[in-house]
C-alpha cells in the first residue's frame, strides 16, 4: 500500500503515539515506512505535525505538499492548516472539536469559520466518542479507527498494533474507542 499521511493536532493530544502505531503496522504488513516527528519546544501546546510515508521504497521522511493521500487532524484549525498537503482527491479525517490557540484566546485573531469541501471529509466529534468509550484521551485511537476503514489492512492487524503500543490497563478502552471510530468511519 502506498500512502502519504499527515497527522496534525495540538501538543499533548497523543499524535506521536498514533504515527508510531501506523508506522509499526505498515512495517508488519510488509511495506517500507518512514515516520517524521516533532519533539521538544513545539510540543508545549503548539501545533504538532507528523508525517507517515508508506510505500515500496520510501526515501524522504517528509510528505511533499500537494501529494498526501490523507490528513488526520485532532483539531479543526489544524485540519485547515494541513489541507495544503493533500493531493486533489486526498481525504481528511478530522475531530471537529476546537482548541483555541493563544492569539484567539487573547482576541488578537479569530478562529476560522470554514468547512473543507471538494474532497472526501470525515468530520466527527471524536472527543465525544472517546468520552463515551471511557477516556477523553482516546481521541487518537478513535481517529485511527476511522482511518482503518480507508485501508485494506485487516482490523486484527490494527488491534494487534494498538495492543503493542498502549498500556495494558488502557487496552480495553482503546479497543472500544478503535471500534467506535471504525463504526463512525463506515457510517
Amino acid at each position: 500500500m502506498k500512502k502519504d499521511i499527515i497527522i496534525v493536532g495540538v501538543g499533548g493530544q497523543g499524535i506521536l503515539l498514533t504515527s508510531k502505531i501506523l508506522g509499526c503496522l505498515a512495517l508488519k504488513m510488509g511495506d517500507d515506512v518512514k515516520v517524521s516527528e516533532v519533539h521538544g519546544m513545539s510540543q508545549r501546546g503548539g501545533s504538532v505535525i507528523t508525517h507517515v510515508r508508506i510505500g515500496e521504497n520510501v526515501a524522504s521522511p517528509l510528505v511533499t505538499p500537494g501529494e498526501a493521500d490523507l490528513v488526520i487532524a485532532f483539531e479543526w484549525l489544524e485540519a485547515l492548516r494541513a489541507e495544503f498537503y493533500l493531493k486533489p482527491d486526498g481525504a481528511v479525517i478530522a475531530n471537529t472539536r476546537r482548541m483555541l490557540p493563544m492569539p484567539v484566546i487573547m482576541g488578537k485573531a479569530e478562529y476560522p469559520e470554514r468547512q473543507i469541501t471538494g474532497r472526501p471529509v470525515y468530520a466527527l466529534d471524536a472527543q465525544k466518542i472517546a468520552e463515551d468509550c471511557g477516556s477523553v484521551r482516546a481521541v487518537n485511537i478513535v481517529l485511527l479507527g476511522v482511518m482503518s476503514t480507508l485501508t485494506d489492512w485487516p482490523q486484527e492487524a490494527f488491534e494487534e498494533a494498538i495492543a503493542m503500543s498502549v498500556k495494558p490497563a488502557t487496552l480495553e478502552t482503546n479497543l472500544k474507542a478503535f471500534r467506535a471510530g471504525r463504526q463512525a468511519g463506515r457510517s
Partner: protein
Amino acid sequence: MKKLMLGNEAIARGAYEAGVRFVSSYPGTPSTEITEFCSAYPELQCEWAPNEKVAVETAFGASMAGARSMSCMKHVGLNVAADPLYTAAYTGVNGGLVLFVADDPFMHSSQNEQDTRMIARAAHVPVLEPADSQECKDFTRKAFELSEKYDTPFILRLTTRLAHQRSPVETADRIDAPVKPYEKNVMKYVMMPGMARKRHVFVEEREARMERDAASLGLNRVEMRGTSLGVVCAGVVYQFVREALPEASILKLGLSYPLDRQAVRDFAARVDKLVVIEELEGILEQEIAAMGIPVEGKKYTGRQGELSVQRIREAFGGEKAPQEPALPARPPVLCPGCPHRATFHVLKKLRLHVFGDIGCYTLCALPPVDSLESALCMGASIGMAVGAEKAQGRDFARHSVAVLGDSTFVHSGITGLVNAVYDRSNITVVILDNRITGMTGHQQNPATGFDIYNQPAPQLNLERLCESIGAHVVVQNPMEMDKLEAVIKEELSRDGVSVVIARYPCALLDKRRHAAARVLGCRNCGACMRLGCPAIERTDKGVVINAALCNGCGLCVGICAFGAITCGGDQQ
C-alpha cells in the same frame, strides 16, 4: 525481523552493538533520546552530566582508560564542549570515542542554525553522516571501530529530520569490546607544547591517511543514473535528492570529512554538471571548488532552513508546491499549572527588565506574558545582567533581573554568579527551580536528587551553593505570588548580589489530577487573561475554564479581584 526505530533509538542500538560501556551527555533537542535509549541497556553505564564540556571530558577519561565511550549533544552543546574536543583531536583515544551531535536546520528548537561540520573541520575531527535509521545504527558501529583504528575521536552528525524520523532497522548482537588496559603515556595524553607539537604532526598525517583509505571504508557510494547532472550530498538530504531529482547521479558521502577528493574527481568526470546539495553552510561546495572543479550549490538552496523534496525540486525548475495558508498561529505556551507563569506574572507586574535564558520560560518573550527581553545561550542571563549594570548603572539594576532554570544554572550559570559577586555587582538572579530539566522532556540533573535511572543521587543544594559564592539567598514558592513579589522587591533594593530561588515542581511532574477551577459571577474584566493560561478562554459573557486543560493550580483564583473563580479539592 526489522524494527521501526527513531534515528536516535537506532544510534543507541548501534552503541550497544558496538560494545560501548559509558555514555555521558547533557540533554538538548534533537539529541536527547539517544542517551535515554542508551540507559535502557544495562551494559551501558549512562549519566546526565551538568554540561557538555563535563560530559565530553568524562567520556574522554573513560576512553583514555580503555572503554568505548560516547557523548551526545545538540549543535550548540558542542560549543560548550569545544575545548576538550579540539585537544582530544591531538591526543587521540584508547577505547573508541564518538560524539553524537545533532544540528537543527530551521531551528525547530534552537537559538541558531550553526553547522557542526564547521567545528569538526576546525578541530580536525572526522565526520560520519547517516541518512536513515539503519545507517544511524551501522555508522555508529563503524565510528567506534574507526575511532580506534585511526586513533581519533569521531563526530557522528545528525539533523532534526534524521534524529526524529523512524525507519526500519535490522539489529545484530553486541560485539565483545573489552576494556583495554590503561597505560601511562605522557607523550600522548599530556598536551604541553613539546608533546602537542609532535601530536599536531600526527593529526595531519592521520587526516591524509584517512582520505587515502576513504574508498576502502565502504561509507561513500556512487549511484549512477543520468550523466547530465551529478549531485554530491550526505545525511537526510540524500533522501530528498533521490526523490526530487530521480534522474540525477549521486555521490553519497557517509564520511563527509575528510572529503575523499579522488572520489569527487572521478564522479565529476562522469557527469556534465556537478552540484552539491547541502543544508546550512556551503562547506562541501567550497572544498570541491578549491580543488579547481567547476561546482555549484548554494545558489540553488541558500543557507537557511531545512531542505525538502519540494525545495530542491523548485530550485531546479520544478513545479511550485502548494503553500501553507495564512491562519491564526498556534505558538507553544507554558502548560496549565506551570510555576513559571506565576513568576513571570510577578516580573511583568513589577515592569522589570528580564534577562532570560534557555528553557521553557524563554516562551515568556511571547504575549501575553511577554516580559523576557533576551535569550542568548545557556547561563548567559547572569552575565547579561552584570554587563547591563556596567552600562546603565545601579538604578537600572534595581529594575532588572536575570532569570534561569535550575538545570541551566547548574550547566553554565554558576561561574556567572561567581563573577557577579566577585565583580561587586548589584544584580538579582531568579532561579526557576522546578526540580527537573523541563523543556527537553524531563531529565534529571544534579539539583533534583535523582540520576538518569531515577535512582536517588547526591543532591546539589542550590541555596548553600549560592550562599557560599557570596550571594544573599531567599527561597520562595512562586505560586504564592504576593510573597514572591514582596521578596523580589526587597532583593532588588538590596546592595550586592541576590538569588531568589523560586521553587515549585514542574506541572508535568505532579501526576495527580486536581479539580478544575470554576467560574461564577465573572465581570469580564480580563485580569486573569493576562496569565496567558491556555485553559482560560474569554467569551462575551465572561471567561470560561476549559476543564479538560485546567490542572487546578489556582493561580487565576488569586488574580480575580471579584472572587469569581474558585478552586479546590483533589480527584483521581
